[in-house]
Structures are given as C-alpha cells and as structure tokens.
C-alpha cells in the first residue's frame, strides 16, 4: 500500500510567531495512500502545520518535502481545502465558479477556464451530490453544502495529496458521513488524505493513520499503534477524561472509545 517514497516528509520543522513556538521540532513521515487525521487540542498548531506544508507560513527551521521535493515544485500534486469560515460566502460567484477555481492551478497564469474545466467541475459536483446546485449563488448554501463545494473544488484539482482543514466543522451528520465516504474513496484510489480533526470519538472509525499534535508531535503512525491512551494523555494533558470503555490497544479488534475533552 505504501510506496517507497513517503508522500510527506517533515524534518526538524519549527514554526514560531516571534519568540512563541507554535510547532516545535516536528519530524513526521506520512506514507502514500493513507487517510490521516491530525488530532490535538485548540492551539496545538494543527492548522499551522498544514499551512506550513503548503508554504503559506514560513518555518523558522526545518523543511517539508512532498514526494521528495519542496512544495513549490509539487504544487500540481497537492489539493487544499481551507477552513470554510476563511472565505466570504457573500462573494459574487456561483457554485460552479468556485469549483472551477480548483482548476486554476493546472491552467496557470493567463489561461481562462473553458468547457473542459466546466465539465470537470460539474463531474466533481455530482460526486459530492451538489450537481443541481451548480448555478446557485454561494451565499444561499447551508454550511454542509458549502463544505461539499469546497470538497468538489479540491476534487477537480485531481491531486495526489489532499489537505483538509476541519472539513466536518459545523456540518450535519449526513454531510459528515458523505464526506468521510469520499475521503475513503480517495484513499482507495491511492491518494493521500490529511485531515485536521478534533472529534476523538470518530478517529478510529474514519482514519487509518494519525498524528497527535500539541506544539510537539506526540505520536504518529497507524491508528492502532499511535492512538493510545498514553499518547492522548500526553497530547491533551489533564483536560481529558476517559469514560466507559477503553482505547484500542495495539491490534485490538473492537475500537469503541468513550473520550471527552473538557475545556
């Protein structure tokens, strides 16, 4: 399943805002073809990690390689879904317009999207169940629909590695299940999917790979190995309580957890 070259290789990565470290000396290797959740409390640097990988935040030290090369040389291999709240949904554009933006990278400077881009966008909209919303103004969408549009925009990028920042934030249960289904389809097609996630209950169900982050990388690896009670305690400190049930030990079959994070 994992190709020889890791999809993402992060070495000695430190990111700081002035003298306040947001990410401390991260070493993380993600093999190709996994569906990985980045888990950690608020302020753990989850979003910053993704933004640094994508070159949106400049690291203080260290480097990131996507399939062995810096991101700037691998842009076409990477798709990005920012947090839904990061854009102004009153922008004058239709759903189709927004999804076609996913093709802009492949088009490059100056070239305009045409019939082909339109068809690809409509196809992607069909995959997320939003085909009939293509000509809808984006301000008329619900939160879940907005998230699906963003997902469709990432799908048309036709990438190898997908980064998604909190795709389940404020969406209904139906949409969440639909999105998870799509992410698992992507993994099945050999893509690597990295998702910032903060619902501990669903980690074992959704992901096969996990990175536990709280400024430092606490643990990473297959969910069965890395998503342990000890690692969670180390990630969340005293703010975590384990309810009935236990976390999966390595290799355990039944993975029902009862974890709550008190804030």
């Amino acid at each position: 399943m994992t190709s020889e070259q890791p999809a993402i290789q992060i070495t000695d990565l430190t990111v700081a805002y002035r003298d306040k470290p947001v990410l401390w000396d991260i070493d993380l290797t993600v093999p190709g073809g996994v569906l990985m959740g980045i888990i950690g409390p608020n302020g753990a640097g989850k979003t910053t990690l993704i933004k640094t990988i994508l070159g949106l935040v400049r690291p203080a030290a260290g480097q990131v390689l996507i399939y062995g090369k810096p991101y700037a040389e691998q842009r076409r291999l990477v798709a990005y879904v920012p947090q839904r709240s990061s854009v102004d949904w009153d922008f004058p554009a239709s759903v189709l317009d927004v999804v076609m933006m996913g093709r802009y990278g492949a088009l490059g400077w100056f070239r305009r999207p045409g019939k082909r881009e339109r068809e690809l966008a409509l196809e992607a909209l069909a995959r997320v169940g939003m085909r009939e919303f293509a000509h809808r103004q984006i301000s008329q969408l619900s939160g879940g629909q907005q998230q699906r549009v963003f997902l469709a925009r990432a799908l048309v990028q036709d990438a190898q590695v997908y980064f998604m920042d909190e795709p389940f934030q404020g969406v209904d249960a139906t949409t969440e299940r639909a999105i998870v289904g799509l992410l698992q389809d992507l993994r099945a097609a050999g893509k690597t999917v990295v998702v910032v996630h903060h619902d501990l209950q669903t980690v074992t169900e959704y992901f096969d790979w996990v990175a536990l982050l709280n400024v430092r990388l606490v643990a990473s690896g297959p969910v069965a190995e890395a998503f342990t009670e000890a690692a969670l305690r180390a990630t969340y400190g005293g703010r975590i309580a384990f309810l009935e049930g236990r976390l999966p030990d390595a290799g355990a079959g039944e993975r029902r957890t009862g974890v709550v994070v008190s804030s």
Partner: protein
Amino acid sequence: MRKEARERIAHTRKLAIEYMNPLTEIILIAVVTAIACALPGVFLVLRRMAMVSDAITHTVLLGIVLAFFVVRDITSPVLAIAAAAAGVATVALIELLHRTERIREDAAIGLVFPFLFSIAVILIARYAGNVHLDVDAVLLGELAFAPLDRYTLGDVDLGPRALWLMSGILLMSLLLLLLFYKELKLATFDAALAAALGFAPAALHYGLMSVVSLTAVGAFNAVGSVLVVALMVAPPAAAYLLTDRLSHMLVLSAAFGALAAILGCLAAFALDASLAGAMAVVTGLIFGAAWVFAPERGLLAQALRYARQRQEFAQAMLLVHLLHHEATPQEAVECDPSHLNEHLRWDAAFTAQILRRAEQRGLLVRQKDLITLTESGRRLAAQTLGGEG
C-alpha cells in the same frame, strides 16, 4: 466659391470646438473617469477595503509633491509614478501598523492618511505656493476647466489632456483586468488557495493598489479626491446589491459610474452647480435606489418577503389552532370566527385578513359561528406540525 464654402465649414467647426465641445468633452471626461474608477473599485469593495481608497486618494498628493520637488515640472509623468508609489506605501504602512496588533485597521487608516496628506499640504503651502498645486483643487477637482488644458500637435488640436490621461488609465485597467481576471477573482475570494496554487496574492494585491493609486492621480486632476472615493465605492456597492456574478458586477459598476457621470454633469449644467458635487450626489442616489429597490437584496424586497413570511406563518398557526381544537368540546368557543382574534391575541383586522386568505385558498370554510378545516387545510396543518419534529 469653393474656397468660401470651405472657410465657412472651417469656421463652423471652430465654433463647434469652442462652444459645443466643452460640454460634451466634460461629459466624456467624466464618463471615462467614472468607469476607470468603478473597475478597481469593485475589487476594493469585495476586499472590504473601501476606506483604503479614501486614504490612497489623499496620500497620492504627497507622492506628487515630493516628485515635483525633484523634477520641478508639474506635467512630468514621474509625478504619476511617484503618486502610485505613495499609494502603495500608504497601503503597506496601514498593513504594517495593523499587523503589530496594537491597533485596528480602521484606526490605522485614520492615522496614516491624514498624517501623509497633511505633510503634503504643509509642503505645498511652505514651498510650492506659487505653483499650480492647489489643495482645494485636489479635494474637489476642476472638471469644468479640464477642456482648457489640451494636447496639440503643431496646429492640430488633439483634445483635452484629462481625456487622454483617463482613457489611458482606463485602457490599462481593462487590459490588466482581462489578463488577470481569473487570478484576481481567486485571490479576492480565497487568498490562501491562491497562494497555495502559486498565484502570488500579495503581488496581485499591491498590483491592484498601484492601479487604484494611478487611477486616483489621474482622476483627481479632473474630479478631485472626494469624488474619486464616491466613484470607486458607490457604483460597485450598488452593483453588489443587484447581481451575484463578479463579471456582471464589473459591467454594472461601470454602467452605474457612466450614468452618474452623465446625469451629474447634466444636473450641474442645469443648476449651474459644482460638477464634482453633482456627480457625487448622483452616485449616492444610484446606490440609494439599489439599496431600496434591488429585486432580492433591497429593503423593499426584504420587507415584502418578511410580510409574506409573517402571513404564511400566521396562516399555519391558525390552521394548527383549528386542527388542535377540531372535534373537541371547546370547538364552539375556540373556533368561533368572532372570538378567534381574542384567543390568538391578534388584532381583528389581521385575523380577518388571514382568515380571508386561507378561505380563498380553500384551506378552511367559514360558517356563521364556526370555522372548519377543509381536507387540504387539515393536511397542511398536519404537515406543519410534522415538519417541526
């Protein structure tokens, strides 16, 4: 004979230039200026930077003054370049202040531009008092005199300088817009994705600010900095209320700008009032009209929608009320048309109106002292209740 005719034609043409053209020329300059301002204005409004246009239109003066001290020529193109640089510097300074997180963006704008503008005002008053750099002219412009300042090639009159200048700026804007439409659209909607895809949103941002600055310089010669702000903000803001496509918003903004220019000039001629003032008033009126009458986002449409929703909901409440008390001992009291308003705590006229509408739609039947639901009324009431669960 023929020479005489030719002379007569030449004389008429001369008259036309002297007496007819100034008015048409003024309108033409105003229209071109308005369109040139409206196009970058669309992106300012969408980026929530409308107030930045106010700052830029003032601080470009500092660039002009400083460049003038170097080149000592008020018509030199260096002045325009310096002005654009001053505009970009203004935006950079505002963002620098804002980024220190010691001050909010609106306050940063309020600090930067009066500071830079007042330096320019002092420099003019102290060192350039005898030059044609007049603070009043900067603020309000002198559109009426624009036709007097003309380009000539030998004996041939090429038209007013302001018209050439603004047409050049408009062409440049159009060209850049055509080239970078896709990139500007993405960078304005989602700067993070634009950066991730390699489209350099920061460069696009400062490119846009340069265009705004150049437009401001060109325009305030003709119409003054106060009107430049009106032309950059009001037409796009009005267009924003009327459309949900960026391309339509650009076209509509340009059209509104042109309309404001034409109507403003005609009003000013008729009333013998300030051209710049009249145009600014018309941009405000156009925005006001869009604000009230826009088919979906206007106040009127919204009020109608609320009224309709209120009636629909009142009707649903009425049907549910009737369903609730149907075939119960209280039916005779609760469903008596003359006491219904007391039970529902509605005023009598509103109750009568809702009853009448529901009856017209065949949802209920009114008898002398009892209202009964029809089959479709019963179904709708049940649906309303079901829909809530």
